[in-house]
C-alpha cells in the first residue's frame, strides 16, 4: 500500500509549470493567512482568557483604518491572482496553428481515439513529445470530461458539439487519463493511459501494428457509401455545394449570413442539413441523424478537410 506515495503530480506539459507556479503562490497565500488567523486566535484566547467573573473588557467598536486594510489588501491580492491566472488561461485557450490533430469520441464508458493517419485506440493515447497536439472531442451520449492531470488540462466533452484542448508534452512517459465528469455506472473505469513517446518511437508506433486506412480514406469510403458523392460533385454540376477547398473558409448562406466551414458547421450540415443552407442551393439534403456515429462524422470531416488542399473549383452560379 505504501508503494508510490506521491504528493506532487508529474509536470509533463508546457503549461504544467505555469499552473503549478500559480498553485504554489495560492498555497502560499492560504498558508500565510491561515497561520495569521490561527496564531492570532490562539494568542488572544490565551492572553485575554477570563481571569475573574466580573472582568470588564474595554469598549472597542471598530477601526476604519483596519477595516480598510483588510478589505483592500485581500482585494489587491485577488486582483493579482485574477490577472495572473486569466492570462495563463487565455494563453492556453487556443491551440497553435501548427498542432497535430487527434480526434476523441467519448462514450459510456470508453474513450475512442482516432489518429488522422489511421490508428484507432481505446482508452490509450499515444503522442510524440515536443509537438503541440490538438484534441477535437465529442461525446456520443452524456457529458464526459477528458482530463490528463500530468498535463494540467481538462475539458468537458459534450454531446452535440466539439470541444477541444491542446497540449505539448515535455517528458516521455506514461500518464493517467481520466474521465472527470460523472457519466454513469462505470465512470471510474473510463480512463486509461497517455503514452508520450520520442518522435521516432511515435513514427514507428504509427506505422507499426495493424494499421487501418487513414481517417480521410475512411471518410472517403463513407462519402461513397452514404451517397454523398452523387450530389456533392467536384465539378460543380451536382445538386449540393462543392466541398473541395471549402474547409476553413467562409461560406455564404441563403439568409445572407456568412459562416466559417469549421468542424461544427460540417457536423451540423450532416446531422441537421436544413439549419444553414448554402446560398444558391435548396434544402433537399436528408438528415443523417441517428444513421451515422460520431466517429464516422469525424472521418467525414477529415475527408472534407483533406479536400481543402486541392484547387478550389468555381462554385455553381
Amino acid at each position, binding site marked *: 500500500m505504501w508503494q508510490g506515495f506521491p504528493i506532487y503530480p508529474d509536470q509533463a506539459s508546457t503549461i504544467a509549470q505555469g499552473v503549478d507556479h500559480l498553485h504554489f503562490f495560492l498555497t502560499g497565500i492560504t498558508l500565510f493567512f491561515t497561520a495569521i488567523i490561527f496564531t492570532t486566535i490562539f494568542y488572544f484566547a490565551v492572553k485575554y482568557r477570563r481571569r475573574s467573573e466580573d472582568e470588564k473588557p474595554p469598549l472597542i467598536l471598530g477601526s476604519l483604518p483596519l477595516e480598510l486594510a483588510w478589505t483592500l489588501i485581500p482585494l489587491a491580492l485577488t486582483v493579482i491572482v485574477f490577472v495572473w491566472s486569466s492570462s495563463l488561461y487565455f494563453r492556453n485557450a487556443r491551440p497553435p496553428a501548427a498542432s497535430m490533430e487527434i480526434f476523441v469520441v467519448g462514450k459510456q464508458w470508453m474513450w475512442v481515439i482516432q489518429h488522422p493517419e489511421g490508428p484507432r485506440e481505446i482508452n490509450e493515447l499515444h503522442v510524440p513529445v515536443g509537438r503541440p497536439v490538438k484534441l477535437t472531442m465529442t461525446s456520443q451520449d452524456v457529458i464526459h470530461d477528458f482530463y490528463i492531470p500530468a498535463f494540467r488540462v481538462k475539458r468537458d466533452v459534450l454531446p452535440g458539439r466539439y470541444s477541444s484542448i491542446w497540449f505539448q508534452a515535455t517528458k516521455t512517459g506514461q500518464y493517467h487519463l481520466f474521465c472527470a465528469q460523472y457519466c454513469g455506472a462505470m465512470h471510474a473505469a473510463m480512463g486509461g493511459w497517455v503514452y508520450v513517446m520520442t518522435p521516432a518511437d511515435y513514427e514507428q508506433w504509427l506505422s507499426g501494428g495493424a494499421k487501418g486506412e487513414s481517417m480521410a480514406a475512411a471518410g472517403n469510403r463513407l462519402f461513397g457509401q452514404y451517397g454523398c458523392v452523387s450530389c456533392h460533385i467536384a465539378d460543380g454540376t451536382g445538386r449540393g455545394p462543392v466541398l473541395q477547398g471549402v474547409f476553413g473558409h467562409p461560406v455564404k448562406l441563403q439568409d445572407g449570413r456568412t459562416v466559417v466551414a469549421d468542424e461544427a458547421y460540417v457536423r451540423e450540415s450532416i446531422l441537421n*442539413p*436544413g*439549419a444553414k443552407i448554402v446560398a444558391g442551393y435548396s*434544402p433537399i439534403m436528408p438528415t443523417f441523424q441517428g444513421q451515422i456515429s460520431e466517429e464516422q462524422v469525424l472521418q467525414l470531416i477529415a475527408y472534407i478537410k483533406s479536400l481543402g488542399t486541392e484547387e478550389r473549383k468555381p462554385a455553381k452560379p
Partner: protein
Amino acid sequence: MSERTLALAHQFEDLGQQHEAGSLGMWVFLVTEIMFFGGLFAAYTIYRALYLQAFEVGSHHLDVRFGALNTAVLITSSLTMALAVHAAQTGNRRQLITCLILTMLLGALFIAIKLIFEWGYDYREHLVPGINFVFEGKVTPHVELFFLFYFFMTGMHALHMLIGLGIMTYLVLQARRGRFTPEYYSPVEVSGLYWHFVDIVWIFLFPLLYLIGGRY
C-alpha cells in the same frame, strides 16, 4: 386582549401591522413567482437567440387573433379586480361580490378560449411535443422546442389562473358572509396583487410567443 378584534391574529400588535405584513408577504411571494417564471423566460430568451428561425416558424402557427383577444379579456379581468378592491376599501359589499364574480367569469372565459380555440387546434394539428408532435420541415427539433416552451409557459400561466379562480371563490364566500370591512380587507387586496401578477405574465407571453419576429 380586550380591544383585539376577531380579525387580528395574536402575533400582531394592531390591524395596521397585520395589513402591512400581509401585503409585504404577498409581494415577497410575487418575487418568487417572478423568479419562477423568470427562469422560464430566461431559458426561452436563450433558445430564441440561438434558434431564431425555428422559433419564428413555430410562432407563425399560433393565431394572433386569439392571443390578442385573450389579452383584452385578461386586462378587463384585471380592471374588475381593481374595482373589487376599490369596493372593499369603500365597504360596498354588493359591488365587491359583483366585481369578484365578473373577474372569475373573465378568467374562465380566458381559459375556455385557450383550451378550445388554441390548444384544441394545436392538438388536432399535431403540434403538442411529447404527445403527438409531427412537424414537416427542416428545422424540426427546434420548432418542437418552441412548442414545448409555448405549451409549458401558457400551461403554467393557466395553472396560476386556476389557482386564482380558487382564491376568488373563497373571497366571494367570505364577502357574502360580510367578513370584509373598510378596516379589514387584506385578503381581497393581496389576492388582487396575485391576479394582476398573472395578468402581467400574460402581457409578456403575448408578444414573446405570438408576435415574435413579426407577422408581415
